[in-house]
């Protein structure tokens, strides 16, 4: 878009021009070499307490201020040593033993000991905050000596190591936290008083410490002077609250921000100038459409054939183009591309003939109405209401009339978990690296969240017993067999036709040319310690 095309000789406030010239608006004043790195982001922070917060931005902050026992390597698959220098897993994946690195130190200089790890993990479990589910199935945490931690599970859990790399499992300086009101005992849910303290302080061993936090404004971290590994290149990082992609792109272009991670495809195209680099990489997030055969307001029975017809009617290619331009990929199954089990899955394709055929066989060639309620939000660059309007148009081609009703997120949530919604749409982002979380959430297993939402109580035939078996096997399987098991699970979930992923939007990382080391991490979103400035 050429500026000249748009101006076309209009007079625009010449009175201001003089004032502006006098003020010399344009570049930033010259500043010291070590200037803070600015990340423009829509912060969704619900808490800065590592055992209560649960959000994308929280992942960035927690992984910067707190070290976990193990880390996730740049390939987003391999586990690397962090606080734990080595670890062993017993044969049936029920006992995990970690040996702590004797060099590991907190930001106040004290050494990290096994008791800190025990305290932190127990607090995570007992606080019953949002990330507490990560400790489900943990039977006991023992610290036989100052450098060893032994965690035992109720049942085999091959996922556990991946979960340990999640930022919510960071090791907290138990002495400092307890001195400021934190509690980790069984009554922690009521006894702990430290949430407010965490809004202004961090007590970890990570490469950065919390400098200040102003809600809805900015989050500032500064380099941890006593960091026990290689010190980060940056001395200060600011995450600046910027609501929408357009504002983020503007800040990037004007040099007011160095990194913007939530710019969508369309806006990214408008960023001009050689100073900004835009990298498009596949992400693990996706947006999906879900059917609920057990929902109260269904006008017809959503049999497997009808569900398959609906899935076949969607114009997947068109939906991707519509929602994210070309900055997105097809997502065949609820297991995200790049996670174990996602290789070589059949891509979803539109097949209107087959859809019409299936509907005719079910006696529904005249079509039917379906209630489609969904949260009115824009996630990862996808505007759900625009996406659903396109879905509505696709379904109309096989005579299915989707009645769209956008809702606020909270209302949607109540309805989808209550009476159920026949056709809805929502998103998912990984909590940690591992495929079991997806099976546990999306598969039609008795008691599973989406099995409930799809109305297993009213339509018990949607339960897929094979998925339950496969999951148990996968959790107990050694690493080399997991891929095959999860792939089988993915194929089963595709067959269910309850969860129909639509698109996996690419992660668009836009940053200044001089910024190096920006990468997207499956566990931590954006590792701050790897970033440097030329």
């Amino acid at each position: 878009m050429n500026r000249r095309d748009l101006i076309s000789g209009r007079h625009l406030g010449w009175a201001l021009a003089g004032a502006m010239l006098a003020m010399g608006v344009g570049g930033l004043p010259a500043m010291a070499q070590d200037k803070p790195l600015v990340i423009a982001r829509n912060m969704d922070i619900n808490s800065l307490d590592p055992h209560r917060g649960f959000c994308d931005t929280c992942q960035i902050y927690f992984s910067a201020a707190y070290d976990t026992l193990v880390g996730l390597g740049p390939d987003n698959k391999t586990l690397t040593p962090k606080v734990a220098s080595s670890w062993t897993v017993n044969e049936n994946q029920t006992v995990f033993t970690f040996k702590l690195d004797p060099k590991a130190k907190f930001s106040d200089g004290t050494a990290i000991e096994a008791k800190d790890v025990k305290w932190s993990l127990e607090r995570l479990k007992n606080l019953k905050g949002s990330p507490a589910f990560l400790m489900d199935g943990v039977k006991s945490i023992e610290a036989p000596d100052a450098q060893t931690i032994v965690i035992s599970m109720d049942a085999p859990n091959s996922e556990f190591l991946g979960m340990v790399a999640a930022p919510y499992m960071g090791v907290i300086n138990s002495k400092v936290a307890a001195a400021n009101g934190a509690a980790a005992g069984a009554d922690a849910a009521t006894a702990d008083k430290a949430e407010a303290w965490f809004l202004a302080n961090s007590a970890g061993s990570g490469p950065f410490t919390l400098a200040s936090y102003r809600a809805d404004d900015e989050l500032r971290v500064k380099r941890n002077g006593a960091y026990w590994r290689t010190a980060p290149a940056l001395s200060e990082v600011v995450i600046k609250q910027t609501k929408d992609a357009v504002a983020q792109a503007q800040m990037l272009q004007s040099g007011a921000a160095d990194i913007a991670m939530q710019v969508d495809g369309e806006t990214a195209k408008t960023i001009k100038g050689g100073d900004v680099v835009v990298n498009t990489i596949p992400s693990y997030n996706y947006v999906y459409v879900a059917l609920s055969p057990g929902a109260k307001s269904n006008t017809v029975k959503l049999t497997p054939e009808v569900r398959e017809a609906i899935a076949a009617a969607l114009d997947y290619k068109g939906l991707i183009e519509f929602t994210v331009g070309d900055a997105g990929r097809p997502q065949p199954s609820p297991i995200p591309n790049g996670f174990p089990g996602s290789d070589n899955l059949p891509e979803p394709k539109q097949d209107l003939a087959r859809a019409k055929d299936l509907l005719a066989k079910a006696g529904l060639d005249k079509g039917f109405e379906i209630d489609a309620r969904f949260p009115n939000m824009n996630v990862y660059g996808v505007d759900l209401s625009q996406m659903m309007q396109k879905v509505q148009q696709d379904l109309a081609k096989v005579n299915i009339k989707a009645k769209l009703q956008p809702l606020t997120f909270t209302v949607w949530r109540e309805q989808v978990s209550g009476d159920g919604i026949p056709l809805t749409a929502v998103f998912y982002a990984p909590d940690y690296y591992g495929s079991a979380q997806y099976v546990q959430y999306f598969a039609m297993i008795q008691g599973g969240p989406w099995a409930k939402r799809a109305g297993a109580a009213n339509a018990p035939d949607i339960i897929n017993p094979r998925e339950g078996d496969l999951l148990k096997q996968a959790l107990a399987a050694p690493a080399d067999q997991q891929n095959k098991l999860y792939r089988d699970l993915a194929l089963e979930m595709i067959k269910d036709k309850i969860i129909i992923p639509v698109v996996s939007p690419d992660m668009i990382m836009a940053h200044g040319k001089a910024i190096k080391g920006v990468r997207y991490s499956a566990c931590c979103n954006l590792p701050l310690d790897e970033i440097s400035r030329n």
Partner: protein
Amino acid sequence: MLRYLVRRLVTMPLLLLGIVTIAFALSNLTKGDPLISIIGERQMDNPEIVAAAKARWGLDRPLPERYLRYVGNLVQGDLGISLRTKQPVAKDLMTRLPATLELVLAAMVVGVGGGILLGVIAARYRNRAADHAARFVALIGSALPVFWSGLLLLFVFSVLLGWLPGPGRLDARLTPPPGVTGFYTIDALLAGDFTTFRLALTHLILPACVLGWAVMGIISRLVRSSMLDVLAQDYILAARAKGASGPRVLVNHALRNAMIPTLTIIGFSFAYLITGAVLTETIFSWPGIGSYTVDAARSLDYPAIMGVTIVGGSAFLLTNLVTDIAYAVVDPRVKLG
């Protein structure tokens, strides 16, 4: 007069209680569970986590008990804790108040200044081209949706022309000046930091102009009519001077009459500006009370919604009281009550 004042002051707590009750009723009528903002959507399926959160935030108590608790805390100045920011609502409001005040005051300067200018021009060139032009500009301002003109001006001045910076109070890289008043412009001047002052000012110009334009209409109209009155009286003065009955009386009379519309302006435009500020702050990412309210309404953060409603309502009540009293002081013809 005194009796009126006392009566008004006595009924104020009653009105305030009414405001609190309405605010409480509204936030608890909400469809949708505020818990989702606290613990996240996926955890809602876990009954243990849900129960713990409910207990922590007192959401498991019956409604009347929550009401009484709330009023009890309110009297001590405790507005509860925001479900979204996890900080005391009172603290949130205090932190954000200077931002909104700075914006509203700057907008008043623009609005009053521009309004007076336009009104004087309109009166001077009455019924000629300049009059119509000035009145038109002012009129457009009061008919424009503030959120649209904000977008438009932002696009023109920040993207197209690049004369002014984008949304926000200050450049992200700078630390705000040491907080004395909370106004970035004044604090920067007080600290002698002219670079920050300049940047804070340029960030303030667009939103202030967008918001100020909205009140220019009312102000310029009032200025125009009072100016016309004054001009008319000039002739009367001149005529009377020949058989003068006391120009001082007339001046006094005229001045006093001019005060009433002035007070109306201040009261009215303040209300108008607060309304407009809510939308303007959203567009310009201005971290004030307006954007706080919008965020609270969207996420069903009921302590925050209640807090803003109560504080906003009380402020209004006070402003109305002061305006009414000032009216009475200035013009004894005004019958109170």
